[in-house]
């Protein structure tokens, strides 16, 4: 596996995290920033819930 430059992956430190609206577990859309409601948050990208 070739080396990935992790520092350059995804939104940069200091930049606004982009808006994201995706379905949650009940199928209804979740707007990440609205759901956060002005609080700090962790956004975790993980491999899979199935395997």
């Amino acid at each position, binding site marked *: 596996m070739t080396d990935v430059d992790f520092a350059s992956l995804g939104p940069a430190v200091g930049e606004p995290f982009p808006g994201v609206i995706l379905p949650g577990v009940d199928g209804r859309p979740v707007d990440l920033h609205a759901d956060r409601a002005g609080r700090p948050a962790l*956004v*975790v990208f993980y491999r*899979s819930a199935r395997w």
Partner: protein
Amino acid sequence: MSYDGVEALRGFGAKYGISYPLLSDEGSAVIRALGLLNEQAAEPIMGIPHPGTFVLNADGSVRSKHFYPSYRERDTGVGVLEHLLGVEAAVHGAIRDASVESVAVSAWFDKDSYAWGQRIWLTVELDIPAGLHVYGRPIPDGYHPLEVELEPIERVLPGPPRFPETKPFRIDGLDEAFHVYEGKVRVQVPVTFMLVDGGTLDAGVRVSFQACTTTECLAPQSLRLVLPIAEQPLVERPQPRA
């Protein structure tokens, strides 16, 4: 956020009692748009992101981001609180302590059990009484800096220790510049546990240092603390599938 469908996430969330939002990026459109697609992942796992965590400030800007070189290695909840967010977690693993030359030394893992692939932090805290200081690096030859070392255990992989900032210190009549610690000092070592069926481990932690007053140095000290850490079994080991 993952590339799983809603059904899979609902089942996963229910099974593990997950209370925070699980977002379904089926098709990986958002993963791609954010530049996080793992382009080296071929079928049947094409579409997975590089695994990582973004910490967002209250205003929605990115405070920090953290990627892991392997899907196997992950921070634990306490690790995230303390090392990504700078919040002291209330619960840790067992604390072991000792005292030598009036310097109190305590050590603990940030949790009392390990699971395969977890990165758990070892903290060693020195409480140096007023009037004494302990040397840090950089250090002239012949003097003994504060060092923390985990004794080797197969498949337990310590990373480089993190030391706090030192204060500069000069002794009248000596040219050399010293860098010292005073008061309470914490050194933290990330430890990745890559073993299964290891059972409870007795982790030996060696702490060495030299304490001095402004006019004289005490003998260099080395002490050993033993921290037990239990094994938490894996929940299951599924195989990759599309």
